[in-house]
């Protein structure tokens, strides 16, 4: 294709899109959005959940029609030339439509055929795609049998079977582990650099947006800022600090304390300290805390920008009301996993894993896609029997699926799995009833859930049609209705925007402070800093366990000292894989 590799790839002029919700209600997804995306560069689309990122991408593909304004893609009006545009672009939707009953190779071939890629071109292209995605050993595996990260990589490979004139990616790294995420980005960056590919990507990871040459910030359907990432970061210049507690205070509790202060816009645990953004351009004075100025990053800039929006509530609003703390000693062990093995056929998903979790602890399970986290989770929740070993949860052997033990456990699955056709209230009523709540207590707990999880305004909307943020809050609320002693959360922040992630952890911190035990998996390595202890798994084996500091230190012993949890994680996993390879 001899398309121009310079100039404007996408031009939006006051584009608006509305959706009818119910009979009378109309939601404005995009409100007079204007921007330009340049050829041969990476443009990021960021913004909270429901900001209109997906709608904008779908408009650019011609799958949706704008209600007003003009959208020009590759010099063609989308409204009049959708097919011409579709012939020239590649698009990776949030949920890439892989055919799960076709193999990796068959999926690739299908898209190559659809795009008219010749056998000659394939001979050059396939080996590179295979090398980039590391899918070569799995060519004949059915796509449905791949792990989440591998599926995303295959999806990307399918969109790259030829060099499109424009590549549109909708949150390509949701649910993808840090290793695969780095690989995916190096594939895309390489194509931009070497082939002058034009890319528009929506993402909720700010470190990804930071790698783009241009960032568009959407909020509630409007563009609130656009420009190079450095310009956005610069908005927080002078506001960013690293906070260090002088007392023996955990990063999590310091973060929660700072977050509740009106002078502070944002606080996130970071390598044992807390990264803080001040409302004013100087450090607030907090007893026993030292603030050191630091260079702002894109996330700091974005938080400045978003907290300035009238509709964004202050961080402290996410705190939840809880009954008084449970009167039990902190040392009590509530989860006991001893030498657990789980096999599927001759494949060992979890291999000889042992760990304990104490009451009130936040325990993080980290690992690449396919490491065995979800299998461990399912065993802990009594959904899957272990092949051998013992699991005790809340004092009962959950393998025998004792209903009494389940009474003490709350579970939030990875994928949204409440009843999509039931309303928020109906879902809550069902789970409350299923957990045996009745009458006034049932009513009180549902009111608690609606108020504390900010669900009241849409309580009668069908859960399946809600934006992702609502669904995640609803899922968590439903799992907490019966005030369980232990809560299991499987990737609760996947696909969540920075604001929602802050809210989530604020709630988790509050729960843990009140004696609720939390077991959580995540692909955001900085979130591991919220945990009291973490365990890193790969290929079913335990690689490291301990406090975040200990794990970072552990990684340092193995080679280069790890600054961030992400570096530590990658070092530990890569090292273990290397050793496994050497051994075999």
């Amino acid at each position, binding site marked *: 294709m001899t398309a121009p590799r310079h100039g404007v790839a996408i031009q939006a002029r006051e584009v608006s899109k509305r959706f009818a919700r119910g009979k009378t209600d109309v939601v404005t997804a995009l409100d007079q959005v204007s921007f330009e995306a340049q050829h041969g560069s990476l443009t990021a689309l960021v913004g909270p959940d429901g900001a209109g990122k997906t709608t904008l991408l779908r408009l650019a593909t011609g799958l949706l029609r704008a209600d007003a304004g003009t959208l020009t893609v590759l010099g063609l009006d989308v409204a009049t030339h959708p097919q011409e545009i579709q012939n020239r672009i590649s698009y990776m939707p949030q949920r890439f439509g892989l055919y799960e009953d076709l193999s990796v190779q068959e999926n690739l071939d299908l898209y190559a055929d659809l795009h008219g890629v010749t056998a000659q071109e394939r001979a050059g292209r396939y080996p590179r795609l295979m090398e980039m995605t590391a899918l070569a050993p799995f060519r004949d595996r059915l796509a449905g049998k791949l792990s989440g990260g591998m599926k995303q990589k295959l999806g990307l490979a399918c969109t790259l079977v030829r060099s499109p004139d424009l590549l549109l990616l909708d949150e390509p790294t949701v649910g993808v582990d840090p290793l695969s995420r780095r690989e995916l980005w190096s594939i895309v960056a390489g194509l931009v650099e070497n082939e002058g590919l034009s890319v528009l990507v929506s993402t909720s990871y700010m470190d990804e947006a930071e790698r783009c040459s241009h960032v568009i910030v959407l909020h509630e359907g409007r563009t609130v800022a656009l420009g190079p990432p450095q310009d956005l970061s610069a908005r927080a210049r002078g506001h960013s600090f690293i906070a260090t507690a002088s007392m023996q205070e955990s990063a999590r509790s310091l973060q929660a304390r700072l977050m509740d202060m009106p002078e502070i816009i944002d606080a996130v645990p970071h390598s044992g300290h807390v990264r803080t953004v001040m409302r004013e351009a100087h450090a607030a004075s907090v007893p026993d805390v030292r603030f050191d100025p630091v260079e702002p990053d894109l996330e700091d800039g974005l938080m400045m920008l978003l907290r300035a929006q009238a509709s964004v509530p202050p961080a402290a609003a996410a705190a939840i009301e809880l009954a008084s703390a449970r009167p039990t000693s902190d040392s009590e062990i509530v989860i006991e996993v001893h030498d657990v093995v789980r096999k599927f056929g001759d494949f060992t998903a979890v291999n000889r894993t042992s760990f304990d979790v104490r009451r009130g602890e936040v325990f993080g399970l980290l690992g690449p896609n396919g490491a065995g986290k979800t299998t461990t989770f399912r065993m802990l*929740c009594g959904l899957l029997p272990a092949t051998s070993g013992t699991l005790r949860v809340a004092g009962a052997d959950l393998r025998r699926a004792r*209903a009494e033990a389940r009474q003490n456990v709350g579970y939030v699955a990875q994928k*949204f*799995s409440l*009843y*999509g056709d039931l309303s928020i209230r109906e879902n809550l009523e*069902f789970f409350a*009833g*299923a*957990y045996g709540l009745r009458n006034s207590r049932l009513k009180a707990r549902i009111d608690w859930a609606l108020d504390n999880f900010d669900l009241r305004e849409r309580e009668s909307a069908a859960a399946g049609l809600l934006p992702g943020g609502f669904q995640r809050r609803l899922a968590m609320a439903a799992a907490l209705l019966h005030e369980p002693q232990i809560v299991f959360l499987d990737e609760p922040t996947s696909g969540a925007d920075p604001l929602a992630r802050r809210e989530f952890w604020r709630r988790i911190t509050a729960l843990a402070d009140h004696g609720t035990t939390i077991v959580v998996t995540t692909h955001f390595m900085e979130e591991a800093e919220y945990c009291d202890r973490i365990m890193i798994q790969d290929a079913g084996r335990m690689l490291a366990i301990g406090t975040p500091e200990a794990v970072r230190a552990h990684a340092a012993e193995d080679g280069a000292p790890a600054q961030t949890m992400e570096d530590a994680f990658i070092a530990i996993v890569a090292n273990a894989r290397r050793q496994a390879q050497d051994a075999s």
Partner: protein
Amino acid sequence: MNAALHRIATLIRKELIAVLKDPRSRLVLFLPIFLQSLLFGYAATFDLNEVPYALLDRDRSQASRDFVARLDGTTVFNRVAILNNARDIDAAIGRKEAILVVQIPDDFERRIQSGQGATVQAITDGRNSNTAGISTAYLSAVVERFNADWSAAHGHAAVPLRVETRAWYNPNLETRWNMIPSLIAALSFLQTLMLTALSVAREREQGTFDQLLVTPLRPREIMIGKAVPPILIGLTQSTIILLVARFWFGIPFQGSLLTLYVGLLLFTTASVGVGLALSAYSATMQQAMLYTFVLLMPMMLLSGLTSAISNMPTAMQYLTLANPLRYAIEMVQRIYLEGAGFEWVYNDMWPLILIAVLTLPTASWLFRHRLV
């Protein structure tokens, strides 16, 4: 116990909301059943109101004209063509203009007069041998009356040997009478089975089933909670058809409503058991649906709805013993038309109980043990 009942009630309520909330599925569950019972009530009949026939009268005598006048005097026989020779028979039937050709031989009058008796030939369209048989039966009734009147008119006091026929429970021998009560069981069976078969498979596919399994609900409770709503829906559908049968088609209800509903309850429970077991076994909705169908087709065909079970080969008759619909159709017909009480239909009831007792626990066992 009390807590368990409460949990089950919560699940039942949720299931009912999930099925009935969407106006489209409400429509799909109750409107078609009403329309179908009307439509099939009219269509599912072996009776003929009209027999288009062609006449090939080789005699053209007074006697043959008398006979034809008899035919045309009925409301059923409708002469559509007069043929001149045997070659036309093929065309008249082949093109479906007539389903019956009445051929009167050239010696018709002579033979009757002489007391030897004549033969009238009826040629029917065997493409539907059923219709063919019925039209012949109608014709033979006309012949019978002609004979009686003939002998009376010609001095024979009466026919020396008469066959007197009477049909019990359905004096006018209307197919509709047997067909529509059968639909009370058959039509609701279809949708109830499909609905149940999808219920667990849908939750599995959407991931909500795990969420259900981590609640204190025991598999037995889930089973009951999942079974009751389709049973209620099935009984509602049956009631719709019952009302159509009684009040639209005016088929007199001879039995007791109590017996009928006890029977229907057992039947719906058994079919829901089959559906749930299938659903618990299936990994996806598609599988659940297709497996249901593979089971449903033979069940419908081997239920006695369209073709009598006693006509089947022995091996197939044994197969029908596992078919809940077989018992239900016989039971409903007997209660509805024959006014049978419990003492007459208990033989149809206990197999239904047996099917339910086997399938429901299987389903509940599969909930936890079938990992997909």
